[in-house]
């Protein structure tokens, strides 16, 4: 499947991209993180501390165990600081 993967705030800066299309067979968010981290060091560094990373699947907040079957968009970002 092809996923739109989005990065925000310092994850965007560390990875150097706001978004990319990723061809993957990852079953869960955790699998996708492992796959991206194996690709290049900038991903491994960005995802080094997953306690500091939040994830949304199709614009809904989810966790690492969330299955990706049927998903179209996955976003990674730090804890929110709006308001």
């Amino acid at each position: 499947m092809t996923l739109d993967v989005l990065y925000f705030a310092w994850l965007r800066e560390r990875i150097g991209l706001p978004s990319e299309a990723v061809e993957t067979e990852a079953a869960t968010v955790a699998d996708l993180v492992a796959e991206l981290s194996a690709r290049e060091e900038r991903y491994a560094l960005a995802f080094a501390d997953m306690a500091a990373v939040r994830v949304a699947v199709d614009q809904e907040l989810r966790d690492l165990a969330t299955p990706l079957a049927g998903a179209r968009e996955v976003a990674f970002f730090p804890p929110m600081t709006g308001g």
Partner: protein
Amino acid sequence: MAIRVQTADFDIGSELAALRAGRRDIGALVSFTGLVRDLGGALRGIELEHYPAMTARALAGIEAEARGRWPLQASLVIHRFGQLAPGEQIMMVATAAEHRAAAFAAAEFLMDYLKSRAPFWKKETTATGEVWVDARAADAAALARWAPPS
């Protein structure tokens, strides 16, 4: 019932006037405004990044949750993004109800959820560089006051 995500500033007085225009049933109107707070004169400004496809949806969900919990007659959330200078308005929420308890509780709920659930991120620029603002432990604690959404 209204959500706006914009770069432009807003006028609290006009927004509150619009919220109650032509109505005689509102007894209590609460507003919260968040401002760019300076760190002792060192702050040059902030940049607010957001996740457009998710923002409106998250804010609408939070507002719907508030309206399910309290008998609100009207509500409003405005959140800006982009570059903001110290002292500028960042966002506002407003709630209207017959009695003050509901208006206050709903406004606090909207703020607590918005802080931790709406996809906005602040970067501060000072003379020494740029830094992404860390989430506050107090905000997680504030969120935990409310029973989880149904």
